[in-house]
């Protein structure tokens, strides 16, 4: 998976560039051109519903973090700016689909499920309140539920900070956070242009929209005066607070209802998180010197990696290696403080999203490779298997113990910014290791079956499923050895290796003989064995199961029990070759060919003796003489019947006489004509034949008789004849030839007088009245 994404890097880069350019253009355009069109939000009329306390709280929150503003803005003002929405949606969707970071903060990990109901209720209530803003409701979902929930949590934390002012916080951290806040406030204007220039792709949700919101606030001073006041003074404009009270009243409501979570120390992290993300940018700018080639990436990397470091046990050393610069500065401590803080850390993970996917993939690939290497070690597997879904908990303290105060482990779960691929890998690994003993069947199918594995292991996979039903224990570990999701090519290679091994050794078949070792008792177990083999044979048709079939007859006790069968076995042994040949022949459809080949082979084997006999000519002569003798005998019989003259006459004439007897006798009237008359008629016919060319069978005669014909006519007739001969010769040369002659003769006879003019019937019809010719003619 990771390498496939690496292959898509150029496309992603192109897309990132485009989105950056578009965002920059839009932002610059917005800055230059103030949008006067923006109407006031309809919520403004509904302000009276909310409490002033909530307003203050909201203001505090809004002052503290821009993210809250962003979310609010996105919720409320999303419908007003279609351009922003489009760009935001495009970037967001792209990130949602392609970026693996998206899964860093799932609801499960962040433990936001608790708040989901609340948040949803909030949104729904907000929908109810904001009847005019149906479009904005859609925007809430476009922001993503996780972000919204995180923001809700932040809000809660801030609210409780300001209200309760618990002393539990570490003052040093507060100081650091305040410092960071100051730095942020000071650096916002400095960083904001960078953020603007930065593409919104890396973290489209937070930063890009932050900038939008800032711009909108600046531009929409009349529509949203409260925010300006928030920036300036919190206490001055309480009327404007109604907007925010309305936004957060339900948050407060839910917060009041629910008990405060133990994660309260997180509150300062809100400030810190935002500040840290931006301070880190500064730090990263320093760090960028180490990595000049990718300045923008480093800014985003650090928080992510920092967030990841503690979570992944194996990364501990690696993370230190990767981010040595963080250890230098004191801000790394702040970062660790952030890490130690449970929920707001998520924001840190969220905020630095502008990390390019390439970096992510590269880091993740390294992680994956390391994991893969780690996987080979069983001890680490065990660790991972233990930790699987929950392994990160113990892993965190290992890495963080030295630095950060021990936060509650539950709060760190949401902080886990494990990347998508790493999480997948871990999950797979853990699943496989955990599941091997417990639930082998289903997981065997699911675990290591990559695409290529599935393709290449099609033949064994069906075997495994039915065999597992009967023999689960031996089969599973071997299949579990199949490479899981280490990498695409590795899996492919390993699968090929496995396939090759399977094809050569047929592990399934090997395993089967292992089973009979167990049932060594008696026939019942053998009977149990046989159906298994048979079933396997049925399932796997192509593979060589002749061996087990052969083993079945080999079963000695049967032969020993029945003594009478031994001579039969002798017979079978004698005819084994013939039986094999028969079986082969039966398998092959082309029986006659093989037999003919065998015959020839036998003939060839006898060939040394044959050439002595080979003088074929005398044999032929002998046969011919024999044939003649038979004919002669027949003739002799007939000649005896007919008479002496038959010796010289051929058979045909004799037969003709026999036939003529029957025919001639009824043809008696011919004899009535006297011979002289017949002669006369014959002479007349001859004379006629001589006179006319019709009786002639050749064209030459025609030409001779028709001496008057011109040479052209003769040539034409000859050409016509040849053409017809050639034409008819293709079909049937014998039949049409006489027809041609007759036709030619007829045509030759008719040619001189055949120039009969066409009969024009219209020539003799009425010609109509006398009329003048048309002018056109």
């Amino acid at each position, binding site marked *: 998976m990771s390498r496939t994404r690496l292959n898509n890097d150029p496309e992603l880069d192109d897309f990132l560039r485009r989105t950056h350019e578009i965002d920059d253009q839009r932002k610059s355009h917005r800055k230059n051109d103030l949008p006067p069109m923006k109407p006031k939000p309809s919520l403004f009329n509904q302000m009276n519903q909310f409490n002033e306390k909530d307003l203050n709280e909201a203001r505090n929150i809004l002052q503290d973090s821009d993210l809250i503003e962003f979310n609010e803005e996105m919720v409320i003002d999303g419908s007003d700016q279609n351009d922003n929405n489009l760009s935001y949606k495009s970037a967001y969707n792209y990130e949602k689909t392609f970026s693996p970071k998206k899964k860093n903060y799932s609801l499960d990990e962040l433990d936001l499920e608790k708040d989901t109901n609340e948040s949803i209720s909030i949104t729904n209530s907000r929908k109810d309140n904001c009847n005019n803003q149906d479009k904005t409701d859609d925007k809430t979902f476009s922001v993503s539920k996780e972000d919204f929930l995180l923001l809700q949590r932040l809000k809660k934390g801030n609210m409780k900070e300001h209200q309760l002012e618990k002393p539990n916080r570490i003052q040093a951290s507060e100081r650091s956070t305040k410092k960071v806040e100051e730095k942020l406030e000071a650096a916002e204007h400095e960083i904001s242009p960078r953020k603007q220039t930065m593409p919104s792709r890396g973290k489209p949700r937070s930063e890009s929209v932050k900038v939008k919101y800032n711009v909108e606030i600046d531009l929409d001073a009349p529509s949203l005066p409260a925010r300006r006041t928030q920036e300036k003074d919190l206490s001055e404009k309480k009327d404007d607070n109604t907007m925010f009270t309305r936004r957060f009243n339900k948050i407060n409501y839910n917060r009041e209802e629910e008990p405060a979570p133990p994660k309260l120390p997180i509150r300062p992290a809100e400030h810190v998180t935002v500040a840290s993300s931006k301070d880190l940018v500064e730090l990263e700018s320093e760090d960028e010197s180490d990595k000049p080639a990718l300045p923008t990436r480093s800014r985003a990397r650090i928080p992510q990696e920092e967030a990841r470091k503690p979570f992944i046990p194996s990364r501990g050393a690696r993370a230190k290696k990767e981010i040595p610069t963080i250890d230098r500065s004191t801000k790394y401590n702040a970062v660790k403080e952030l890490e130690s803080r449970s929920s707001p850390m998520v924001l840190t993970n969220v905020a630095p999203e502008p990390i390019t996917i390439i970096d992510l993939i590269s880091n993740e690939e390294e992680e994956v490779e390391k994991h893969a290497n780690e996987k080979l070690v069983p001890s680490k597997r065990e660790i991972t298997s233990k930790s699987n879904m929950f392994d990160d908990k113990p892993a965190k303290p290992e890495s963080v113990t030295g630095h950060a105060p021990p936060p509650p482990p539950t709060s760190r779960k949401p902080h886990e910014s494990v990347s998508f691929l790493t999480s997948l890998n871990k999950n797979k690994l853990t699943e496989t290791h955990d599941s091997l003993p417990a639930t082998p069947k289903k997981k065997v199918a699911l675990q290591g079956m990559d695409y290529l594995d599935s393709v290449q292991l099609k033949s064994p996979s069906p075997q495994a499923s039915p065999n597992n039903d009967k023999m689960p224990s031996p089969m599973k570990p071997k299949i579990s050895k199949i490479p899981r999701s280490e990498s695409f090519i590795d899996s492919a290679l390993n699968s090929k290796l496995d396939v090759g091994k399977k094809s050569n050794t047929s592990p399934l078949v090997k395993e089967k003989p292992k089973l009979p070792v167990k049932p060594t008792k008696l026939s019942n177990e053998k009977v149990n064995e046989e159906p298994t083999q048979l079933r396997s044979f049925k399932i796997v048709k192509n593979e060589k199961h002749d061996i087990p079939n052969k083993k079945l007859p080999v079963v000695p006790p049967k032969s020993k029990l029945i003594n009478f069968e031994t001579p039969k076995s002798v017979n079978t042994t004698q005819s084994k070759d013939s039986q094999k040949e028969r079986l082969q022949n039966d398998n092959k459809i082309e029986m*006659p*060919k093989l037999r003919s080949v065998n015959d020839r082979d036998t003939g060839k084997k006898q060939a040394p003796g044959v050439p002595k006999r080979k003088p074929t000519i005398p044999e032929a002569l002998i046969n011919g003489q024999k044939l003649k003798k038979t004919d002669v005998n027949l003739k002799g019989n007939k000649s005896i019947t007919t008479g002496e003259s038959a010796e010289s006459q051929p058979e045909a004439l004799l037969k003709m006489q026999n036939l003529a007897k029957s025919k001639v006798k009824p043809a008696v009237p011919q004899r009535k004509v006297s011979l002289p008359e017949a002669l006369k008629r014959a002479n007349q016919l001859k004379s006629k034949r001589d006179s006319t060319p019709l009786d002639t069978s050749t064209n030459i005669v025609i030409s001779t008789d028709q001496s008057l014909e011109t040479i052209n006519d003769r040539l034409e007739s000859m050409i016509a004849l040849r053409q017809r001969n050639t034409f008819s010769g293709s079909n049937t040369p014998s039949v049409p030839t006489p027809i041609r002659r007759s036709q030619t003769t007829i045509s030759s006879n008719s040619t001189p007088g055949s120039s009969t*003019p*066409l009969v*024009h*019937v*219209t*020539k*003799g*019809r*009425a*010609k*109509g*009245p*006398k*009329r*003048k*010719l*048309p*002018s*056109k*003619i």
Partner: protein
Amino acid sequence: MNSDDKYDAALDLLRRLDPAKAKINLQNLISLEPELAEDLLSSIDLPLTIKQDPKSSNRDFLCCDYNRDMDSHRSPWSNDYFPQLAPEDLAESPFPSDKLRQLEILCNDSFDVYRDLYYEGGVSSVYLWDLDEDTDFAGVALFKKSNSSTTNWDSIHAIEVTNSGNGDYNYKVTTTIILQLENNTTSDLKLSGNLTRQSERDFRVEGNKDEQIHLAHITNLGTLIEDIESQMRDMLETVYFEKTRDIFHQNKNSLVTKNESEKTAQAEIVKGLQNL
């Protein structure tokens, strides 16, 4: 070469030329031999043309050489030439006599019904002209049915009715059917040709009154033309379509024989291989 020979040669030539281009070929021949123009125009049947009679509510009438004078054609409905001729030319232009005109009107009406019954559309026109004898007359009955400019059925019945005496009349009908089928939309198939047949029949016409005689002529001519057209239609069906069907079957049979020969060759090869 006599004029008759030229005339025959021209007719022969036109018989052998493309019937679809008969008009062009005729004009070319007339340009070559202007002397033969009158004979050729009267004896060569060209596809009929349609004109409208403005004096009878633009009713269509068919135009041929028999109702032509100069460049105008006489309408059977108004008995006028369209486009109208100059009075000088019109004075010399042929018109049927009043008696024959009455018969012409009846013939047009009756054959229009016939046309409607048999053609279910199209146009029909009947033109009569007088012959030397008062009782004799000649004429032409024209029918045209065209679904498009390229698909036409033109039937031209040239009639000669001569009184052989004692109430017996000889009806001589020379029928020419010009069939032209083209389908340019789907394919380049063209099927066009002329078929001309002449038939005679004698009828006894009883009656002294002109009306009775006219009715008798109309009935006799109608039955005669009806029979001739049906026969001609059958002939066309056999000549054109059966011939094309024969050609089609010939091609098909040739294909069949080819396939059979291939099968036999294949069988021989298989036998040879089996014998190896």
